[in-house]
């Protein structure tokens, strides 16, 4: 499967694949219902709850897609800041943006896709995604459960590994290109 075929903007085949994926999931659900009806019912109830919770997120996904389409010039500037020659500044921008970004990941994918197409380094895309695991609003809760020292040490290691992760992902995906 080539990367080009998976392009969500231009690839017609990816649209078919998406509906096939959904159809396969529905078939899987049917099987779960046949074999474990109670588990299937709980799953559907959870799905209903999740759908209600995620409805505003879907609106947000649409808005993000629209904004990145509309202001592709601005994303080009951001992409330059995180491009191949961006050096330390690029790493800082990606990691700080990752830590500050919040909410579900789905709205961020289109933006990252757009920026990568405009030159953002894959290493910095990966670093951004790894740094997103630091959830600033939830850190006090982590400290409450596991202690402040634990929270500080874990956050520190995640920051360090954001760089290592990004670097490694880029090295490996480049080699397999």
């Amino acid at each position: 499967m080539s990367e080009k075929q998976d392009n969500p903007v231009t690839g017609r085949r990816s649209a078919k694949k998406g509906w096939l994926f959904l159809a396969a999931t529905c078939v899987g659900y049917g099987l779960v219902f046949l074999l474990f009806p109670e588990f299937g019912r709980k799953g559907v109830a959870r799905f209903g709850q999740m759908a209600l919770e995620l409805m505003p997120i879907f609106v947000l996904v649409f808005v993000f897609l629209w904004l990145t389409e509309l202001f592709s010039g601005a994303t080009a500037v951001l992409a330059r800041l995180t491009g191949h020659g961006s050096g330390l500044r690029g790493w800082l921008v990606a990691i700080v943006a990752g830590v500050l970004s919040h909410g579900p990941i789905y709205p961020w994918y289109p933006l990252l896709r757009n920026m990568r197409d405009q030159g953002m380094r894959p290493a910095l895309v990966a670093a951004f995604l790894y740094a997103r695991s630091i959830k600033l609003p939830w850190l006090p809760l982590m400290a409450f459960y596991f202690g402040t020292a634990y929270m500080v040490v874990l956050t520190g290691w995640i920051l360090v590994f954001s760089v290592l992760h990004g670097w490694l992902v880029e090295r490996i995906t480049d080699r397999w290109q």
Partner: protein
Amino acid sequence: MPLTKEKLLTSVRKTFRMFLRLFPVLLGVMLISSLVIELIPTLIANGALGHGHFIDMLIADAIGSIAAAQPVISYLLAGELQKAGVDLYAVTTFIIAWVTVGFIPLPVEAMMLGWRFAAWRNLIAFIMAMIVAWLTVATLRV
């Protein structure tokens, strides 16, 4: 470049087409997540953990990787795991994998960023979850 009515309409149409392509994948991922979230407490209650440091870290990593929900849920579950006597290495691996690895949202990530990137990124994050957990606990014990 000024924003004209025509440009706005074109971008909305283009976005709508793009969103339609993403929508079935998002829906499928949500359906799978709903089942998985129901499964996790059952796995833990049935004694999936408690088989030694490394095996527990590996299992915690796998369970955390298939989860796709708010990180706060991972803290609550991890807190319960610790109370139940599961060691801090596995608990920490579980917390890290929950937020850094996403096997369930993988189709969405792959659709947007490419399969090669998404698969390697998640695989590396899976391995790193155990390393970061080990380093965190080791640092705390110094």
